């Protein structure tokens, strides 16, 4: 890693604060932050009406694309990741339901319930469930979901 980029202290900054702290002109600060962002050392939140907040880290942050990203995309109950989950390959809603059941705590299960509305391939879901020995748990969670919210109907052959 370039030593030049290690000079910055980790933490949250606005562009003005970053410029002030490192004695840079505003435009230079933006350029520097942009370079850091390309290296994966900065993540940005905000933009538009909101002020941008830049989070600087000492090591590049990999983007996640696993269970927590799928759940937080579809579920009303948002979860704070217990671990970073990255997937190389095709990770689907069906995979996420199985992972949710395997993680197994109450909050995770509640969030996982919302995923049943987005299942596209019931066969894949039950094949995965069979592999992980959680067929009954999938059914139980599905029936619980049907009782508590509007949910897509499961094909009859998988009900029993």
């Amino acid at each position, binding site marked *: 890693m370039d030593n030049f980029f290690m000079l910055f202290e980790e933490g949250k900054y606005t562009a003005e604060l970053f410029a002030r702290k490192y004695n840079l002109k505003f435009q230079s600060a933006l350029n520097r932050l942009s370079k850091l962002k390309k290296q994966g050392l900065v993540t940005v939140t905000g933009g538009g009406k909101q002020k941008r907040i830049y989070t600087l880290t000492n090591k590049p942050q990999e983007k996640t694309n696993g269970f927590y990203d799928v759940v937080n995309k579809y579920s009303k109950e948002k979860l704070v990741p*217990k*671990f970073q989950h990255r*997937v*190389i*390959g095709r*990770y689907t809603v069906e995979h996420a339901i199985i992972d949710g059941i395997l993680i197994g705590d109450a909050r995770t299960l509640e969030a996982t319930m919302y995923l049943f509305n987005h299942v596209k391939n019931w066969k894949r879901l039950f094949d995965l469930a069979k592999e992980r020995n959680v067929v009954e748990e999938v059914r139980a969670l599905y029936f619980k979901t049907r009782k508590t919210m509007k949910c897509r109907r499961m094909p009859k052959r998988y009900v029993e």
Partner: protein
Amino acid sequence: MINTKDQEDLFKLISEYLDRDLSCIAIGGTAMMFSNYKTTTKDIDLVFESEKERESFILAIKQIGYKECLLETVYDKWRLNHTEKPLMFTRGDERFDLFVKTVFGYKLDFNQDKIIQRIDFLGKKNLSIFILSKEDLILLKSITGREKDFEDIKTILDLEKFVDWELIIKNAVKQKETNSWILIDLEETLQKLKDSFSLDTGLFELIYTSQD
């Protein structure tokens, strides 16, 4: 040497040759690469939960040309005589060190609560690789006794603002029944680090009292 991209491609390839879903814990350089502490490693260290899982993995890597090799060139005499030594497989520059449950007596916890990162390689079967916390990585690096491990610990400490040394010592104490040298190895590492990273002297007292 293998870089991050090649390592990911290699795991993806292996997942296509597996005959069952597998999960394992990555330690050493591999874990450091997944945690972005470094970009290349010589050896890929993996710990499996059971001998059967390791066998399945070995079957897959043999199909893509990895061959078993001797441990003599890498580990010292004490580790060579250890009952929980790894199996090593190599192909060109890359090398797999494959452990089961323990790393030279250090028992690894496969509980999901302990992991900070999980990487799934979805091929024909699913290969899940778990990454432990930086504290666990440092402790493991302290006990393997290889040349590069001390450098790796320094790399982690250079990049991390806060390392919970008390937790590291507590974890070491928990393991001292099965690994009698663990506190001695850890103390030796801390001695080497104390000047560069201004470690608290209280940590050494904690080790000495725990050793008694």
